[in-house]
C-alpha cells in the first residue's frame, strides 16, 4: 500500500506535534535519570506508531519504508531512545508479517499494531553478535512445546515489553549452521527471566536487558513460519529495514546537531562578530550540512528500493554506514561549535554525542556494512 504525499505530510505534521508537545519537554529529565518514558509510550499507542509498518489488513498503517524513515528521522532528532521503542518492535512484527502463518498473523499483528503487546528481537548473546550463526541458545522439541535454554543480551524492549522474537538453535549439528536456526515468539512467563538492565553511556531511558531462558516452555505454534531452520533468513530479511531505520536515526541526530549549531553560531560572538562569520566555523557547518544531505538521500534511496521490493542490502548498508558516521561526525563538530556549552549536561549536544556511537555498532557494525557493500559490489559486477 502506498501513502500519498498528502497523507505523508499530515502524518509528519502529527508526529511533529507529538514530539513538540509530549517528547521534547521531557526528554532531558527522562534521559538524565535513565527513566523509561511510560507516558510517551501511551501517547505513541494512541498515535498509532506501533503499527506504522504493519499491513492495514492486520490493523496497522502499512506505511512505506520511505515515510517510516522520515518518522524515525524526526523522532531521533528529538530523542533517539523513543525511536528504539517502536523500531525493534516493528522488526519483530515484520518477521511475523512476512514469514508467519495466517493464524500467527491474525493472532499477533493486531495486538502488535495497537501496542498492547510490545517487544523486539533477541539475537545477540554474551559472546556473539555479528556472527549470528554462533549463537548457543537452544530450543528442544518436547511434545507440543519447545524447551528453550540460553541467554541473550543487549535486548531492547526486553524489560518493558511483553514478547520477543528470539533466535534459537533447533538443530545445533546442522551444516551449514543456519539450517538449524529458528525464530520463536516468546512471551514473558515461567523460565523467561530478565537478569538485569544494562547501563550504557547513551541511549538512555530505553530498556536494554540481559535475558536468561531456563527450561522455558514455548508452544510449537510460536515458531515463526511453522517450519524449523528458517530463522536466520527470516531475521536477515528484517535487518534491511532495520538498517534503513538506523540510517534514519543517524540522519535525525546529524540534523539536530546541525540545526542547533546553525542557530548557535549566529548568536555566539567572538572578536566582535557572530562565529558563523568566521571561516573555521563556516567550514564545519558546510561539511556537516553536506554530509547530512548525502545521508538523507542515501537513506531515502535505500528505503525506496525496499518499498519497490528490490534487493537493497548494499543500499541499506551504504545508508547505514554513511548516515551513522555522519551522526558521530556532526555531534563532535556540534560540540566544538558550542564550546563549553556543548560539553555541558544542560544542553542537548552532549546527549547527541553520547547517543550517536551506538549507531555505528548496533544493527550490524559499520565494519560489517563495509564487508557487505564490498561483497555485493563483486557479486553484482562479475568479471
Amino acid at each position, binding site marked *: 500500500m502506498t501513502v500519498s504525499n*498528502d*497523507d505523508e*505530510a*499530515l*502524518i509528519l*505534521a*502529527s508526529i511533529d*506535534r*507529538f514530539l513538540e*508537545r509530549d517528547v521534547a519537554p521531557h526528554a532531558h529529565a527522562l534521559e538524565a535519570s535513565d527513566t523509561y518514558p511510560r507516558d510517551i509510550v501511551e501517547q505513541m499507542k*494512541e*498515535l*498509532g*506508531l506501533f*503499527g*506504522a509498518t504493519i499491513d*492495514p489488513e492486520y490493523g496497522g*498503517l502499512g*506505511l512505506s519504508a520511505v515515510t517510516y524513515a522520515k518518522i524515525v528521522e524526526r523522532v531521533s532528532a528529538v530523542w533517539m531512545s523513543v525511536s528504539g521503542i517502536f523500531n525493534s518492535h516493528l522488526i519483530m512484527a515484520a518477521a511475523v508479517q512476512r514469514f508467519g502463518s495466517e493464524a500467527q498473523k491474525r493472532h499477533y499483528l493486531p495486538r502488535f499494531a495497537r501496542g498492547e503487546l510490545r517487544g523486539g528481537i533477541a539475537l545477540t548473546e554474551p559472546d556473539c553478535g555479528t556472527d549470528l550463526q554462533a549463537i548457543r541458545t537452544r530450543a528442544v522439541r518436547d511434545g507440543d512445546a519447545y524447551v528453550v535454554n540460553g541467554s541473550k543480551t543487549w535486548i531492547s524492549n526486553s524489560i518493558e515489553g511483553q514478547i520477543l522474537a528470539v533466535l534459537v538453535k533447533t538443530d545445533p549439528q546442522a551444516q551449514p549452521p543456519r539450517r538449524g536456526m529458528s525464530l520463536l515468539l516468546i512471551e514473558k512467563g515461567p523460565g523467561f527471566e530478565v537478569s538485569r538492565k544494562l547501563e550504557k553511556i547513551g541511549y538512555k531511558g530505553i530498556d536494554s536487558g540481559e535475558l536468561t531462558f531456563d527450561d522455558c516452555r514455548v508452544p510449537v505454534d510460536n515458531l515463526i513460519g511453522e517450519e524449523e531452520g528458517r530463522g536466520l533468513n527470516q531475521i536477515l530479511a528484517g535487518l534491511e529495514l532495520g538498517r534503513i531505520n538506523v540510517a534514519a536515526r543517524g540522519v535525525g541526530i546529524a540534523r539536530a546537531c546541525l540545526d542547533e549549531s546553525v542557530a548557535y553560531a549566529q548568536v555566539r560572538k567572538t572578536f566582535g562578530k557572530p562565529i558563523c562569520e568566521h571561516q573555521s566555523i563556516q567550514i564545519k557547518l558546510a561539511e556537516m550540512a553536506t554530509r547530512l544531505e548525502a545521508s538523507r538521500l542515501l537513506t531515502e534511496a535505500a528505503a525506496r528500493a525496499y518499498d519497490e521490493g528490490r534487493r537493497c542490502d548494499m543500499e541499506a548498508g551504504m545508508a547505514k554506514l554513511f548516515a551513522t558516521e555522519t551522526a558521530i561526525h556532526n555531534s563532535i563538530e556540534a560540540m566544538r561549535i558550542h564550546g563549553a556549552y556543548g560539553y555541558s549536561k544542560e544542553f542537548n549536544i552532549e546527549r547527541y554525542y553520547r547517543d550517536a556511537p551506538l549507531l555505528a555498532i548496533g544493527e550490524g557494525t559499520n565494519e560489517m556494512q563495509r564487508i557487505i557493500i564490498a561483497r555485493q559490489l563483486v557479486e553484482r559486477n562479475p568479471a
Partner: protein
Amino acid sequence: MKILVAVKRVIDYNVKVRVKADGSGVETSNVKMSMNPFDEIAVEEALRLKEAGTAEEIVAVSMGIDRCQETIRTALAMGADRGILVQTEEELEPLAVAKLLKALVERESPGLVIVGKQAIDGDHSETGQMLAAILGWPQGTFASKLEFETDSVNVTREVDGGLEIVKLKLPAVITTDLRLNEPRFASLPNIMKAKKKPMETLTPAELGVDVTPRVTVVEVVEPPKRKAGIRVESVQALVEKLRNEAKVI
C-alpha cells in the same frame, strides 16, 4: 445539533515569516502551512461537543486555493465528519469569508458555528463578528468556556478585569480564545481513515457570493529593525535619557 467549523490554511506558527522582495505580501512558496491554531481550538471544541452528545455532526469548511483541502483533511483526521472547500484564487477578505459562511449556513442549517477568534496571518479578528451580524445571530466572542443548556449556551469570555459570562440563544456564532481547550493532534490511523470522509468543493459563484476584494494592500514591509543600544555612564544619565529622550518617566 450540527456544528459548522471554519478552518484556515495559514503559515505554520513555527515558521519565521519573510516579506516578499517586492513588498506585495509575505513569502508562502516552500513554506510550511498548517491550520490556524485558533481554528484547531474550534475543531477541538466541536469534537468535544460531539463526544459529549451535544452535537451529532461536524462540518469543516475552508476557503481559498485547492491546497486548502489539506487543512480540511487535518480537521477530518482530528474527527470532523465531512468537509466543504469553497475554492477560489481570489484573496479573501473577512467580509467575503463571512458572506461565504452565511451562504453555507443557509445551505447546511447548523445549530452552531465555531470559528477561531482570529487567524494568525491577517490578525483581522473580524470574520466571526461579521458573520453573526449578517446572519442576525447572537455572538460569543473570545470564548474560554462553553456550557450548553437546552436551546442556549453560556459563553465565558476573558475580558479586562475578569470573566464575563453571556447567555446566547441558539443558533449562535462562537469565536475561540486560546484557553478554551488544548486541541488534540490527529492519530495516524485517523489520518488514513479520513481519506474516506466526504469532501465537497464549491465556488463562490455557486454560492452566489461576490468575493471581489474591497481593500487594496498598499505595501507589506518588515517591522523596523531594532537599533543597537548605547551604554550610559551613570544612573543620572540614564534617568535623564529616560525622561527627556524616551519620555517614559
